[in-house]
């Protein structure tokens, strides 16, 4: 599974990448903000996006809306992985097309479960 991991924190990218590798996902591309994510998705072939919310240049929610408005990208499931913990934010992400939502802080198992639910 080709995965795009989007987070402005190199630490969070490293932690999530380690979790993905333990789950057997080694084809992981990284992006540091929403704009970089959109540019990298244009290369094609991605099957899952893990997206932070608060990032410079283009936020995760803006990038999610762009992905879902693009006929070439909208079928790619996007899981938001963010510290935004309020229900209104979760609802906004889901109504904008997010496939699932992981609130930081999270246990690695939680991320694994959300990814597994996408694969089914």
């Amino acid at each position: 599974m080709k995965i795009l991991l989007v987070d402005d924190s190199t630490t969070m990218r490293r932690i999530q990448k380690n979790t993905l590798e333990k789950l057997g996902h080694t084809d992981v591309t990284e992006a540091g903000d929403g704009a970089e994510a959109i540019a990298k998705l244009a290369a094609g072939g991605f099957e899952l996006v893990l997206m932070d919310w608060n990032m410079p240049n283009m936020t995760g929610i803006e990038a999610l809306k762009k992905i879902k408005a693009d006929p070439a990208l909208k079928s790619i499931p996007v899981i938001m992985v963010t510290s935004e913990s309020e229900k209104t934010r979760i609802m906004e992400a889901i109504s904008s097309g997010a496939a699932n939502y992981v609130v930081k802080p999270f246990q690695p198992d939680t991320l694994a479960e959300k990814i597994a639910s996408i694969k089914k």
Partner: protein
Amino acid sequence: MASPVKVEHINPFVTATAETFKSMLRATVTPGKLMLIRGNKLQSDISGIIGLSGGAQGSIILSFPRITALKAVSEFIGEKVLAIDETVKDAIGELANIVAGAAKKDLTQYKISISLPTVIIGDGHEVQGGKDVIPMAVPFESPFGPFYLIVSFKSEA
């Protein structure tokens, strides 16, 4: 006249700090007695700062002595770090970001927005109070050593 941050505005950040360390660093941290920052300048080596805006203004700061930061970040990223570098800087900023975000769910009435993290590095830098509100510091004990959570929170209501 400036007044101290209310306890009800500090508690969500204390809970969020404990949750964050439990989930992301597999560590139990214990808060100590609240301290007024005024007259109690805190000395730290690295601080992660998140600005708060919306129905409340202020900031939260996670402030660490060097040794605590190195041990905590080593656990956070799963690799031993020996010096305060870009990796440690990013990790401390992310910890502050996670704490601020997690606390928001208990402060929904204020519709708070959180800033991107700012990290200050400097041996023994001082953290002081502001003009409009007197920040409160919560000392924490952790398996990595002591650190502080500093909350500055002023609501419009």
